[in-house]
C-alpha cells in the first residue's frame, strides 16, 4: 500500500496563521492579503522551492511587509518553510520577523517593511528581466495606504510609459489610506497607461481571471478590494 502526502491547502492557512501570535497590530494586514497570496502562489505564479533561484523564474515582491503572517503561511503551505518554524517567529532564534528578510528566508524576493519600496524595485526587476530576455513575470503587492508613499508614483509613471508588460502590481485595498483614493485606486494606474482590473480580494476566480487577463504592451494593476480595516 502506498500513501500520498497531502500538501497543505487554502483550508490550512487560518491554522498556520494562528501559529504566529504577538503581532496583533498587523492582524488586519495579514488577513487582507491571504486570498490574493494564495491565488498567486497556488495558480498564477510558476514559483516553487525547486525553481526559486532560477534566473528566469516568476518573481513575487511583497512590498507591504507589515503583517507577513499570511505570507509566511502561504510559503509554508507551498513548501518554502517548515510549519515548525512558525510558532517561534519574531524570536531572536527565528529567521521569520515582523518584516520579511530576503537574506534569511528562501523564496522571499525582497526585504520589506519601509513602505513604498517594492513597486520601484519591481520596475527595475522587470526591466532587468526584459534586458536579460527572461519571460518570467514580476508581481508586487502593495497596500492602498502604502500607496500614499510618493515613491510609488514615480514607479507607476515610468512602468506605464515603458509599457512594462512583465510587471503586475496588486493593490490590496482595505481602505486604510488616510486621505483615500476617490473614484478608486485603479484610476491612478489607468491615467498612466496601465491595464487595470478591480475585483473582490476574496473571490479566487475573479482574482485568477484578473491576474491572467491579457495586457499586451502594458503593465497590469489588479485592485483587490477587501473589507475595510476595522
Amino acid at each position, binding site marked *: 500500500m502506498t500513501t500520498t502526502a497531502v500538501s497543505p491547502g487554502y483550508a490550512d492557512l487560518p491554522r498556520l496563521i494562528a501559529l504566529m501570535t504577538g503581532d496583533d497590530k498587523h492582524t488586519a494586514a495579514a488577513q487582507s492579503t491571504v486570498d490574493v497570496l494564495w491565488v498567486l502562489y497556488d495558480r498564477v505564479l510558476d514559483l516553487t522551492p525547486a525553481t526559486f533561484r532560477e*534566473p528566469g523564474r516568476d518573481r513575487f515582491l511583497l512590498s507591504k511587509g507589515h503583517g507577513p503572517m499570511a505570507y509566511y503561511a502561504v510559503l509554508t503551505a507551498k513548501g518554502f518553510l517548515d510549519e515548525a518554524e512558525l510558532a517561534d517567529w519574531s524570536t531572536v532564534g527565528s529567521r521569520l520577523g515582523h518584516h520579511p528578510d*530576503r*537574506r534569511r528566508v528562501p523564496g522571499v*524576493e*525582497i*526585504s520589506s517593511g*519601509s513602505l513604498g*519600496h517594492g513597486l*520601484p*524595485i*519591481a*520596475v*527595475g*526587476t*522587470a*526591466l*532587468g*528581466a*526584459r*534586458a*536579460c530576455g*527572461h519571460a518570467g513575470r514580476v508581481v508586487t503587492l502593495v497596500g492602498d495606504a502604502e500607496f500614499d508613499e*510618493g*515613491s510609488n508614483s*514615480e*514607479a507607476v*509613471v*515610468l512602468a506605464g510609459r515603458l509599457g512594462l508588460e512583465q510587471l503586475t502590481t496588486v493593490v490590496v485595498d482595505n481602505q486604510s489610506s488616510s486621505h483615500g483614493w476617490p473614484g478608486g485606486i485603479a484610476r491612478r494606474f489607468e491615467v498612466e497607461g496601465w491595464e487595470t482590473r478591480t475585483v473582490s480580494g476574496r473571490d479566487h476566480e475573479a482574482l485568477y481571471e484578473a491576474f491572467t487577463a491579457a495586457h499586451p504592451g502594458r503593465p497590469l494593476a489588479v485592485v483587490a478590494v477587501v473589507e475595510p480595516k476595522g
Partner: protein
Amino acid sequence: MPNMRETFLSTAEEIVDTDPDVAVVLADISAAQLAGAARRHPDRVLNVGIREQLLVSTGAGLALAGLRPIVHTFSAFLVERAFEQIKLDLSHQDAGAVLVSYGASYDMPAEGRTHQSPGDVALMDSLPGWTIHVPGHPDEARRLLLDSVPGDGRVYLRLSAQENASPYFGVGFQTLRQGSRGVVVAVGPMLDRVLAATEGMDVTVLYAATIRPFDAAGLRAAVTDAADVVLVEPYLAGTSAHCVAEALADVPHRLLGLGVRRDIEVRGYGELADHDLAHGLDAGSIALSLKDFLR
C-alpha cells in the same frame, strides 16, 4: 583633456557597448551625453526621468534580476535625496551596484546649497561594506570605474570638477613625501594643494583615491614617534576621524581633520576658489592650519 565627468561618461559607454551584463541608470542628468548608447542599448541604458528614488530602486531591481547597474546623477540627489533607497534597496537587500556621482561638495558653486553635497561620504560611511572611491584625476576615475564593474559589490565613485595634475594608481595609502613631524593624508582632489602646502615641511604625505575601506595598516606604518595626523578630505571635515582613531587606538596621537566646515552653512555663490577659501581648503589655508597644528 576630458574632465572626470566626461571621462566617466565615455568609459561607461565603452562598458555598456562591450559588456551585456551592465546597465546604466540615469535620472535626466547626463542622459543627453549617453543618448547614443541609449539608442544602441535601449534595454540597458535607462533614463527614469527626474525621479531619484526610482533611480536607485531601479538599479536595485536590475541587480536582483542579474545585471550590474551603474547608477548616476549629481551627488546631492543620488546620495542625500535617495538615501533610504541606498540603505534599503541596495544595502539591506544585499544588492550590488556602482553609484557614480558628480558634483562633490561644491563643484557647482553658482548653483547654491541645493547642489552641494558635503555630507555624502559621511552618509555612505554609515552603511557597512561600501567601497568609496574619491579619485583625484580623470585617469584614476576611469581606472576605478573599470575596476568596480566586475563582481557584485557596492561601490560609490565620487567624481569632482576639482582634480590634481597627475594620476596615482597605487593601492591604499601611497607615500608621496616622507617626513618626521607628522602625517598628512590627502584624499582625492586635495592632493596637489596638500603638496603645495607642505612644500619644505618635514612631514609625510599620504594619498588615497579609495577611502573606504580605510587603509589602517598604511596609516599605522607611516606614523612615527610623532603621531600627529592631519586628514585633508574634500567633504565634511573629520569624516574619516573615526578610522584614524581605530587605526591608532593604542598609539597616543593627535588628529586634525580638515574638510568642508561643519559649523556653518556657507551661503554664497561665486567660484570654486571662493568656496575653497571659505572652507580653508586652499593651499595657503591648509599650510596655515598645518603650521598651527604641527608647531
